[in-house]
């Protein structure tokens, strides 16, 4: 039996992260049957997590259990996946679009001399060919692309695909793979894991309303306006997009996005935020999204329930004035 699609599960401390399940949604567009698909999961001992993944998805899981995989090790992961994909003559190798997944995808593609497409948002099967869609220029453009040769290595954007149903209605097989790290010195030594967030800044997760500021606010001085709005609204907290934290206007614990916090408040008020992909990943689960931006084509407006084309700095004071009057009456 030949394997067409290799899905690489994202593993952390011997758990399988939920983005891994979404890969089956991508695989369903690539292989006619789940029997042609396998997962690869790597960790110090991933048997338990792999068994659960196989039960949920019905897809067979090959486990790579080795002490070297105790912490994310994209270099070694790529080496292992290369060997496996080459042995199976796989046509598609799919990683989640994460820091570890992208790095391993790049190395796997070089090893296999394969085409590589990252942050894939959609896959459509045409006659004889498969089209992959990804965003360019902060989501202002959609690129449709195809690979002229096999295999193809892709990374799948979190949230872009729903996990496929377990079509076979029975768990996939879990099979350990004998993995020996290459004797050659990798020169890459993971030293542990650390979390940026401490328990003290949980208020973003608890807030009913998040007032989030982006580069569109212009000056650091204007954060005061954002803070004023958050102070006026009930159970509201201030958050920011990554560029503001890069400027140290707010700490990274206030950053919403793939590399920061994932939030789902009742109202997410995006002020001067253009809507970078990595930001959208952190807030698109909000119950209601209202965006204020001067650029009517800003990507954030495609995700907002209500769009306000205005300059934050002039609009918010008008709103605040009315809000105060209204709440008094």
């Amino acid at each position, binding site marked *: 039996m030949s394997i067409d699609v290799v899905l690489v599960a994202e593993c952390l401390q011997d758990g399988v992260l939920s983005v891994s399940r979404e890969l089956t949604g991508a695989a369903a567009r690539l292989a006619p049957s789940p029997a042609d698909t396998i997962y690869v999961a790597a960790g110090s001992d991933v048997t338990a997590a792999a068994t659960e993944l196989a039960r949920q998805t019905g897809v067979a899981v090959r486990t790579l259990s080795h002490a070297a995989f105790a912490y994310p090790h994209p270099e070694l992961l790529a080496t292992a996946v290369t060997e496996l994909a080459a042995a199976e003559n796989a046509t598609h190798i799919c990683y989640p679009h994460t820091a570890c997944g992208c790095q391993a995808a790049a190395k796997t593609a070089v090893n296999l001399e394969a085409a590589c497409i990252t942050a894939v948002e959609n896959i459509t099967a045409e006659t004889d060919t498969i089209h992959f869609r990804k965003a360019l220029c902060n989501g202002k453009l959609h690129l449709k692309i195809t690979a002229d040769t096999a295999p193809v290595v892709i990374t799948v954007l979190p949230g872009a695909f729903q996990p496929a149903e377990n079509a076979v209605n029975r768990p996939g097989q879990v099979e350990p793979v004998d993995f020996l790290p290459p004797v050659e010195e990798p020169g890459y030594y993971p030293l542990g894991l650390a979390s940026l967030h401490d328990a003290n800044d949980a208020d973003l997760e608890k807030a009913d309303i998040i007032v989030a500021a982006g580069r569109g606010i212009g000056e650091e001085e204007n954060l005061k306006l954002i803070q004023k709005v958050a102070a006026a609204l009930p159970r509201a907290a201030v958050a920011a997009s990554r560029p503001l934290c890069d400027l*140290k206007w707010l700490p990274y614990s206030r950053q919403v996005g793939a590399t920061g916090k994932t939030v789902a408040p009742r109202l997410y008020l995006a002020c001067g935020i253009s809507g970078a992909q990595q930001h959208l990943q952190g807030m698109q689960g909000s119950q209601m999204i209202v965006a204020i931006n001067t650029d009517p084509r800003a990507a954030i407006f495609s995700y907002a329930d209500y769009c306000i084309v205005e300059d934050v700095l002039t609009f918010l004071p008008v709103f605040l004035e009315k809000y105060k009057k209204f709440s008094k009456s």
Partner: protein
Amino acid sequence: MHILVCVKQVIEIEDDIKIASDGLWLDEAAMDLDHRINYYDEFALEEAVQIKESYPDVTVDAITVGPPGAETTLRRALALGADHAVHIRLESSGFVSADIPARLIADYIRQANPYDLILTGVMSEDAMQRLTGPMIAALCHLPCATGVLKETLSPENNTVEVVCELEQGLQEPVRLNLPALLTIQSGINRPRYASLSNRLRAKSQAMETIAPDKARLPTSALSVISVREPEKRSQGEFLQGKSEEKADKFLHLLYKNSLF
């Protein structure tokens, strides 16, 4: 110590998107495009310059792959503190598969003096591929760390310790043997401004230009099908009227959703 910083000239699109008649790329000539150095590469460059300022005998080279116009990005790198600049000329417009610049830069690295450290931004703002850095590392058989938020060199041990950014606020410290390649995440430092005198000096500074043999250029296994503006995906309602009216409508929304 020899450091190489890979920089890219990116385009920034305003709201005047025009697609070329073949549907494969933008009609760049008809648009008011901004060309500038990639945001993340500025942090990579600043990190290299800070290393140069902290250790003796460090030289920083900047390299780019791109059309003649990309020279301005190299001039900027020189103004920000790079010592030498290398321009690999590649006549290209449209989407470029990351393996092409990666192969050209890897070829250069193998031929030039060996570098102890290679830095680049975590990704480019326009293509958002996150590939070029780790591909160069794989091609040159160098250890690689991506999304680096902090780096501490230890020249006496010939190692560098870094903190890599994962998702959801998680970070992974890693030690790498030198030579190594690091892709730098934004926020690792505060990129300096280029002073006028440095900008003027950079204007006339010599740079190395390489015109790769056309017959031996790496080819891409990817073909573009189309480039489009995304279809409006949300049913999002644009609030109409003057600022005052929009504020009233927003207020009403809050009230309706009991967010008072």
